[in-house]
């Protein structure tokens, strides 16, 4: 989970709820823990009631929403783990690092399920590249995505990008990762029984992202300078070592490892409390055992730090030393920082002083959910009235400009939304891994499973202009487009993940867009029989003047049963016939 959309300010109602839950006034550390865990990004307080409606079951679903990534069976004991996530706000502040840490974060979500990352995708939304600032942001984001993915050796096989002025202040950067695993090698964020130990693996902990929490969900202001300290810097080299270390440990030490969880938004607080409450256990931790990168860090900072490239392993006490040595041999820090306990408490100590003591469930489950006011947006009333006139308008435009079919086509191809995306994908290593059967320049990309005649087809889609014009239908179109793209390569769609990028949910018209988008997605998924195995919500994407167009991005995964039967869109032979199917 990456930091995004965190609104630190707890409301009075929330503060009162916390007091009731704790039966006391929270101290500074405890309050910070609640602020992060009850933020929009960690708690989904604005969207949870709506998301419950999405179908998440299916015969192939091994893991639905609730874990770091969804997992779907590919048959014969093979499975695929996948998830999409936004890193919009950090990318608007520091495009290279923002995008790069976004990729790193989604990779860790997938490795924490026990999978080896096999492909990356991304979905980008920017203002048309007319200003220096936008070009700087766009260029930085593209090279940041490549900078991380290329360096860790996971191919970036597909993506999509749209340009629209509504993303001027809030560009969108969504990253998706797909990993493969054996069904019986699935891991979850579980603590197991009391006495198991918490082994923190990876980079040292610094002050990354701590002060930044407050900016992320508040409207981005023009003066980014004040946001500086919040920027997280990724270290893909460490990220690569983390992938290999996790794979190595999970394959060779499975009897010693009980569960694992990546550290993202909310850092240690989030990882520890989520694992504890899922497993109905408690945890004690000692912040003095956390390897630090900077001097004089307070317990508050250590608990909330969002330093990248860290994972939390839960391991059996008897084997911890061997594991620790092995991790160090592989080039990473490893430190025992706590223990699983029976009592359902998250107890944070600094040596022998207790600095926080809260029930894990209070952090993860008890946030007051918000069903917001919904109002039919004014702009739709007007737009829908005009709808019948649209084709007429188009015709008038064509006649007025004396467009021939030829220059109409050239004009369309000239639009950055339709034209070639070569400038982007040539910066991404899409062949590393020697599994890429189709990518890019195809409707969906296909990566094979080595040693088998089958593969995974993947892509992501979401045309926000349609969603803006009609949230419910637009969402259906997005799901259908994604599944069509899979089907046309010869794959059977198996499941989807989604990223809901929206404006300020406190505005009733925006909440209308969100609620109806989810409704549309639900209907399309039910009709097509495609389960939703996870996703991510990014709200408060608003600038000073406007909210972004509602932008659900659908990431879909399908199975290619026979690689020799893949279809591609290029013309094959002279004389072949073109056939139009459908309405």
């Amino acid at each position, binding site marked *: 989970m990456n930091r995004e959309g965190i609104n630190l300010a707890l409301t009075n109602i929330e503060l009162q709820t916390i007091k009731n839950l704790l039966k006391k006034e929270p101290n500074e550390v405890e309050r910070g823990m609640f602020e992060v865990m009850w933020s929009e990004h960690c708690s989904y307080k604005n969207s949870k009631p709506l998301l419950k409606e999405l179908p998440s079951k299916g015969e192939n679903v091994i893991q639905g929403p609730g874990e770091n990534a969804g997992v779907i069976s590919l048959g014969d004991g093979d499975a695929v783990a996948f998830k999409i996530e936004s890193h919009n706000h950090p990318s608007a*502040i*520091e495009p290279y*690092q923002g995008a790069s840490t976004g990729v790193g974060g989604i990779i860790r979500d997938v490795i924490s399920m026990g999978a080896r990352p096999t492909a990356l995708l991304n979905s980008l939304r920017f203002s048309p590249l007319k200003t220096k600032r936008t070009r700087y942001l766009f260029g930085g984001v593209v090279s940041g995505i490549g900078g991380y993915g290329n360096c860790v050796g996971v191919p970036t096989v597909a993506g999509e990008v749209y340009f629209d002025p509504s993303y001027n202040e809030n560009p969108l950067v969504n990253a998706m990762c797909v990993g493969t695993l054996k069904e019986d090698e699935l891991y979850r964020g579980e603590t197991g029984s009391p006495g198991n130990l918490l082994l923190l693996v990876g*980079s040292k902990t*610094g*002050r*990354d992202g701590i002060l930044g929490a407050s900016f992320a969900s508040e409207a981005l202001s023009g003066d*980014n*300078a004040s*946001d*500086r*300290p919040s*920027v*997280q*810097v990724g*270290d893909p*080299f*460490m990220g690569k070592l983390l992938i290999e270390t996790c794979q190595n440990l999970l394959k060779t030490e499975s009897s010693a490892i009980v569960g694992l969880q990546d550290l993202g938004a909310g850092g240690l607080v989030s990882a520890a409390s989520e694992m504890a409450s899922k497993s109905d256990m408690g945890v004690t931790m000692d912040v003095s055992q956390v390897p630090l*990168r*900077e001097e004089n860090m307070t317990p508050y900072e250590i608990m909330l730090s969002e*330093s*990248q490239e860290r994972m939390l392993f839960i391991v059996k006490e008897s084997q911890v030393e061997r594991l620790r040595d092995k991790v160090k041999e592989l080039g990473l820090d490893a430190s025992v920082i706590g223990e699983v306990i029976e009592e359902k408490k998250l107890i944070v100590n600094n040596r022998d002083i207790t600095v926080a003591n809260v029930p894990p469930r209070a952090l993860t489950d008890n946030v007051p959910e918000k069903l917001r006011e919904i109002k039919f947006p004014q702009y739709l009333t007007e737009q829908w009235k005009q709808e019948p006139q649209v084709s007429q308008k188009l015709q008038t435009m064509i006649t007025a400009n004396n467009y021939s079919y030829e220059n109409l086509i050239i004009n369309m191809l000239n639009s950055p939304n339709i034209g070639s995306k070569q400038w982007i994908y040539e910066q991404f290593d899409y062949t590393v891994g020697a599994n890429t059967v189709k990518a890019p320049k195809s409707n969906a990309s296909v990566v094979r499973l080595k040693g088998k005649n089958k593969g995974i087809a993947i892509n992501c889609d979401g045309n926000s202009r349609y969603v803006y014009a009609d949230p419910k239908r637009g969402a259906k179109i997005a799901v259908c487009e994604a599944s069509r793209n899979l089907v046309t390569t010869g794959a059977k769609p198996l499941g989807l993940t989604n990223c809901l990028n929206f404006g300020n949910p406190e505005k009733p018209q925006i909440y209308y867009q969100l609620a109806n988008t989810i409704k549309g997605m639900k209907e399309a998924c039910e009709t097509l029989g495609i389960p939703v195995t996870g996703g991510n919500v990014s709200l408060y994407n608003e600038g000073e003047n406007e909210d972004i167009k509602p932008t659900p991005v659908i990431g879909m995964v399908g199975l290619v049963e026979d690689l020799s039967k893949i279809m591609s869109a290029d013309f094959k032979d002279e004389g072949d016939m073109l056939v139009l199917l459908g309405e």
Partner: protein
Amino acid sequence: MFRAQIKVNLKTGVLDPQGEAIKDSLHSMNFNEVNDVKVGKLITLSLEDNDREQLEKRVEQMCERLLTNPVIENYQYELVEVMSK
């Protein structure tokens, strides 16, 4: 004619994985006296102008607008007068 030498370094607290990797490598080569390594950039500009005060302002603008990334880097510069060729 002036020459500006601009030293660009990462701000304190910003992760510097490169410095760490170089330090480890130096240690493995038995340069154990090395305690810490930082890697920054050194940008040298040749400037066709003779007004030092004016140039100072210009160099600062260049640093802030293009040469450095104010989000994670800070800089220092020196202006030295040089003979034109």
